[in-house]
């Protein structure tokens, strides 16, 4: 089939030119025989970023492994909205054990596959930010340290959404949650050190670490496929906006994910063996207000008396992210 060099993004729009692509270059989702790892009919909220991210990630992993895939799942939204029986959405072998042990369960599955001579079967563990950065962190770090043959995917919506939007260690500074209410002299979540697990994963020097957002689904697919080229522990951290918890419009999920990237609020990059190897450049850096304003969890920063000092601190962090991960358009990452 003849084709011309492709520009993914037409000027002024974000339309993915799937139809213009060579079939081999198209998204897994454009294939008629796509896997539908998570089938339609599940109970996720309208505009759920996690459902979208999980679907793209798992279908890409299924394609990369020739459908030889088993998934372990932490307790959380993804587990709840894709079950219960007999309405399971899972078209792949899937297991849920507990909130804090998805990484260890996946280790066990991978060990069983190895001992059974089925090393062609690959294993994914997945959880939300609570199950990953908080309660499951010990098991995750252990899996990394042993370099177990597992790809762990964290769907980060920056709070405990399944239990009603409580703060996690992935909740950003100033954000309102049910346990960090916008009251008192320092409304919203604290300005702490934060706990950016991709950097902690890199510190384990595991073969592959990547971050992604649901705004760049081809980038996400590519990273999942790249992860499947490695053996050993791998980690992908996907920012998945949650309309319910973030107080954003359900039709804005992808726009907000894109703003998270373009403001520098969420760095998008890849690393191999502890060293960063790529960054998704920001074409034109936008001020953090663009990202914060459409979300009710940050509403207390604006209004009649905007909290300019807090916004400035958030902007500082975004600027630092862009510098640290080399995402400015002119910067070349070596």
């Amino acid at each position, binding site marked *: 089939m003849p084709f011309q060099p492709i520009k993914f993004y037409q000027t002024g729009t974000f339309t993915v030119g799937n139809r213009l692509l060579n079939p081999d270059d198209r998204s897994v989702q454009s294939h008629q025989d796509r896997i539908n790892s998570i089938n339609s009919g599940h109970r996720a909220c309208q505009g759920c970023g996690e459902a979208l991210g999980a679907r793209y990630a798992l279908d890409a992993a299924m394609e990369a492994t020739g*459908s*030889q*895939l*088993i998934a*372990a*799942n932490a307790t959380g939204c993804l*587990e*709840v909205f894709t*079950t*219960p*029986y007999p309405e*399971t959405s*899972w*078209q*792949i*072998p*899937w*297991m*849920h*054990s*507990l909130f*804090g*042990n998805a990484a*260890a*369960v*996946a*280790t*066990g*599955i*991978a*060990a*069983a*596959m*190895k*001992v*059974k001579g089925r090393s062609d*079967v690959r294993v994914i563990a997945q959880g939300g930010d609570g199950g990953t950065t908080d309660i499951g962190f*010990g*098991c995750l*770090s*252990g899996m990394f*340290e*042993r370099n177990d043959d597992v790809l762990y995917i964290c769907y980060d919506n920056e709070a405990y959404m399944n239990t009603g939007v409580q703060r996690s260690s992935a909740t950003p500074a100033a954000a309102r949650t049910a346990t960090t209410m916008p009251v008192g002299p320092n409304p919203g979540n604290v300005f702490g050190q934060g706990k950016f697990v991709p950097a902690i994963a890199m510190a384990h020097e595991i073969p592959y670490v990547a971050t992604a957002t649901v705004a760049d689904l081809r980038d996400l697919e590519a990273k999942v496929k790249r992860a499947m080229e490695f053996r050993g522990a791998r980690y992908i951290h996907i920012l998945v906006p949650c309309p319910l918890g973030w107080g954003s419009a359900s039709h804005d999920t992808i726009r907000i994910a894109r703003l998270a990237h373009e403001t520098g609020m969420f760095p998008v990059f890849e690393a191999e063996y502890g060293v960063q190897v790529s960054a998704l450049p920001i074409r034109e850096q936008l001020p953090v207000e663009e990202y914060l304003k459409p979300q009710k969890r940050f509403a207390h920063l604006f209004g009649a008396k905007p909290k300019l000092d807090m916004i400035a601190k958030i902007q500082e962090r975004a600027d630092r992210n862009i510098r640290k991960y080399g995402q400015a358009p002119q910067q070349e990452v070596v």
Partner: protein
Amino acid sequence: MLKQIEGSRAVAEAIAMCRPEVVCAYPISPQTHIVEALGESVKSGELANCEFINVESEFAAMSVAIGASAAGARSYTATASQGLLFMVEAVYNASGLGLPIVMTVANRAIGAPINIWNDHSDSLSQRDSGWMQLFAETNQEALDLHIQAFRLAEELSLPVMVCMDGFILTHAYERVDMPTQQQVDAYLPPYEPRQVLDPRAPVSIGAMVGPEAFMEVRYLAHAKQMQALERIPQLAAEFKQVFGRDTGGLTHTYRAEDAETIVVAMGSVLGTIKDTIDEMRDDGHKIGVLGITSYRPFPLAQVRAALQNTKRVVVLEKSLAVGIGGILSTDVRMALSGIQLHGYTVVAGLGGRAITRKSLHKLFREAEQDALQPLTFLDLDWNVVNKQLARERAGRRSGPAAENMLRDIGTVASKIA
């Protein structure tokens, strides 16, 4: 083959003969020697086709075992005390999912105060977890019960704890009759899972279950343990055919035929009790023993049958249900419901307190005269307790209780005459 060997090593050798496919290890005394030996066997290649995984916690150990078992691998781990408590959420999960994991519990006290020595508080805290619990009296029984445990677990798709007294058994060098690989292979077929994670036939395991089916799922676990009440004696009989030894079963009686007093106990203390009772029998006392091997499922009918014609029952247990008294004795009382006899709970040996024949002689004689309190704490040092109680009455800031009591007792060395 007869062998003079440490209990932990004997158990490790027996487990290796059971051909485990995934072994997860996290160190906690007194179970460490078991997984150390298994780790060495895997690393040297002696135990082939087995993944040995050094995990970062007991919670991870059980979680790795859960994943491995759900993926069709014969899975084993060992723990004790705080380690068992640390993995509790996964312990319940393993049984709820119907995964036939076998775990050694090297029974040890639970803190605070921290204490590494033997009692049964750890595994008894998991009596309602859905795991079967088999208690070994000797090292021979400990290693034999592990072989039976894999068979039992896998037949019923339920996990089994094999409980052996920490240090008293795990660290004791005793003569054991080691089975051969051929014998174990003849007794224990390869694991054929009822449910398995396999891309060739995808299933969802561990989905959410609402009120419409939760009761039924839980009942099924109970029904399986009731099946185990039938299977455990059958598996012991089959074991005898292959290995030529009487091991396992639900309960065992000793010199109990015409006994007017029967002592009920679990684990290694049965040896001391039997020695004491031999001496008392020589003196004409009508006293016998009921040893309980299967604590879960609890053999109500067998316990009732063994005790219904006696005059009094002394349950001697290495556990304490704070606020009521006995744990094992509560179950024994249930077996005896409607039968009028004298029943005594004796809490003994907590945190490794030695249970001596001397103390047992005195205790059993008091029991025979019905001079025991319904709840007795064997060899409790009342001076130390009363002194601390007085201290607490005297003033608010009485300080940490355990440390006060230790100071009152003085160094252990000073007690040696």
